[in-house]
């Protein structure tokens, strides 16, 4: 048991560190959710790609370095330690690309991956719908077969689509078989966001910026070559990334360790004035370290052929809550000026979305409880809630079916990607 990096991993680390030190912009880029910031972030992606740092774990043929999991985690640590910009390509390179590698045709890989790696084409995820959030499988947007044209016609509405305000392409699930139940009859589609019939309406987030959007589909034609995986197999395809061995569904701990280090720095400046923040500072550091070490354990298990499985849900609850607590402590330290615009305030506002996106933490806790602890599944909403009447004889004065929990199956959460 050890935490030592090998010679080649150390060399990789040194190379990454050196390049980042020389290339990370001295001033933070404007927010990627503004027109100006979008361009700046796309340019940064291009710069990363030119030096082969944009998709380190991908094959060399697609601008990667075939980095191992260990190297990927090392790169992420270096990336955030260097204070490098957020990744505008994140949804594509971390969530969609693993699926294209596993389920895409050669033609799709060749067509989509190179422009994804350079940031030339930025991808938005289109999962949620107005009536399908945590219960994603109840989605209603449809895909109708058009045999004559050799493709599908999409109709419906997606919402909370991260990056869709400025992105070029979208990916999402549509109901291609209206007869099929829930997880069946869904198909995974790729579509340009400027296609005929697509309307994107940016939504201002808590901070006023258009980080996500509504996307409307009105008879949008998608040719067969833009279907990912087999028609009707979309749910399985979407879920298959959860345990992806490229580790791309891991949320890298580097970001939180870097933030915890900055928090210690803030404590040095403001700790005397706000001594009650002491425990918050220690706990943020501890939890970030716990996440870093936990990730090394995960990497070891994955390298041994293990699968991520439901552990991804354990992860997600941890980092999302850690992120909020860390930023709350920073705002405590900032005192009366905490409400003013600052990098800490931006980080705080962003952290608030963590327990909601990529499957709410309630869904994640259901997954942990059912799949890891083996607790019984929720009764289906459509069936009777247990046998409530029977319990009255056990001394409960008035049992009613309301005693049950009304929500439908929690068996399947949202796709467990974590990028936003």
């Amino acid at each position: 048991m050890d935490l030592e990096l090998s010679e080649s991993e150390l060399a990789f680390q040194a190379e990454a560190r050196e390049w980042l030190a020389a290339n990370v912009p001295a001033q933070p880029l404007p927010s990627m959710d503004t027109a100006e910031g979008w361009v700046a972030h796309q340019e940064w992606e291009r710069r990363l790609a030119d030096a082969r740092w944009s998709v380190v774990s991908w094959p060399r043929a697609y601008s990667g370095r075939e980095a191992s999991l260990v190297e990927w985690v090392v790169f992420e640590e270096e990336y955030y330690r260097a204070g490098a910009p957020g990744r505008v390509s994140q949804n594509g390179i971390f969530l969609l690309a693993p699926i294209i590698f596993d389920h895409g045709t050669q033609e799709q890989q060749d067509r989509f991956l190179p422009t994804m790696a350079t940031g030339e084409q930025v991808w938005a995820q289109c999962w949620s719908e107005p009536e399908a959030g945590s219960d994603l499988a109840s989605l209603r947007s449809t895909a109708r077969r058009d045999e004559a044209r050799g493709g599908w016609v999409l109709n419906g509405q997606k919402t909370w689509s991260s990056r869709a305000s400025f992105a070029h392409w979208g990916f999402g699930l549509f109901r291609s078989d209206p007869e099929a139940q829930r997880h069946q009859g869904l198909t995974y589609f790729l579509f340009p966001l400027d296609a005929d019939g697509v309307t994107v309406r940016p939504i201002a987030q808590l901070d006023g910026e258009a980080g996500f959007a509504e996307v409307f589909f009105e008879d949008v034609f998608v040719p067969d070559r833009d279907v990912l995986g087999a028609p009707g197999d979309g749910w399985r395809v979407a879920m298959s990334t959860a345990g992806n061995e490229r580790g791309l569904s891991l949320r890298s701990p580097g970001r939180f360790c870097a933030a915890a280090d900055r928090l210690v720095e803030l404590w040095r400046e403001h700790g005397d004035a706000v001594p009650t923040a002491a425990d918050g500072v220690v706990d943020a550091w501890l939890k970030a370290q716990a996440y870093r070490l936990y990730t090394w354990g995960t990497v070891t298990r994955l390298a041994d052929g293990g699968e991520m499985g439901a552990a991804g849900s354990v992860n997600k609850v941890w980092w999302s809550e850690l992120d909020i607590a860390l930023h709350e402590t920073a705002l405590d330290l900032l005192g009366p000026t905490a409400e003013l615009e600052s990098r800490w305030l931006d980080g705080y506002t962003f952290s608030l979305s963590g327990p909601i996106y990529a499957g709410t933490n309630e869904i994640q806790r259901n997954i942990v409880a059912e799949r890891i602890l083996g607790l019984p599944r929720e009764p289906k909403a459509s069936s009777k809630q247990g046998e409530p009447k029977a319990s009255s004889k056990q001394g409960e004065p008035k049992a009613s079916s309301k005693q049950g929990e009304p929500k439908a199956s929690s068996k399947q959460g949202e796709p467990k990607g974590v990028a936003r």
Partner: protein
Amino acid sequence: MRFEPTSDQRDFAAAVDGLLSASDTVAVARAWAEGDTEPGLRLWSRLAEQGVNALLVPEDVGGLGASRVELVIAFELLGRHGVPGPWVESAAYLPVALTDTETLAALAEGAVGTVAAPPHAPLALDADVADHVYLATATGLVGGAVGTGKVSVDRTRRLFEVSGVDGDGSPAPLDAAFDSAALATAAQLLGAGERLLADSVTYVKQRKQFGREIGSYQAIKHALADVRIGLDFARPLLLGAALGEVPAGAAKVACGDAAYRASRTGLQVHGAIGYTQEFDLSVWVTKVRALVTAWGTPALHRGRLLESLVGA
């Protein structure tokens, strides 16, 4: 980079676990709490045969000279099985603090040692059954005379005042010994937390109310999921501290928090039956409360962590 126990370490864990699983440790603990230390001391000897007492004793004086990883593996199991006795003192603190080779050899063989290290560990655990009793002073380790006994929330922890008997003591690495004790206590806490969770999961799958297993309600599920998550992220800090990657205090704080959450949640999901001494859950609920403040309170360790971070 392999942040997982080796196969040798897993074999060692399996051997200790096998012994403890076959030893009715709850009965041993209950007897110990009643003052009948005979079964506990028998188990002590059997664990000594497995090498648990000798782990940190150097090889040249008859020990195993094992790493702190083996130490935390063994102590997690001691915590998980609720084994009574001054294990932390005898197998984690004294092997680091002592320079006297004769006593080190005796401890490795299975002699019982204990120590009071005021102000953070002011009383000596189970000093009445110990062969070697010490007091840690500002200048070093001195022999101790056993004084008045005190009653702990954990009835298996029989704590005694100790006064120094011979001289000032020679200089000894007492800070390192304290760290070692904190680390071993953290491991016991993690083991106790795992046991509390396992028993709670078993219980909520059996217990039915309103016609359903109570474990099918989200209020229960989410509480137990949080326990699972807390323990999952305490373990890497424990192993990381064993490797020297983070201070032992980090493990003590994290394992204490995670185990305490396990005990509070475990008690809550059991309802009234968990609040009885007779039900076995009480063994771990009371032990966790005691260990949270043993060998450095959370406040002490957090304070030291902050100092080291700011000084870094």
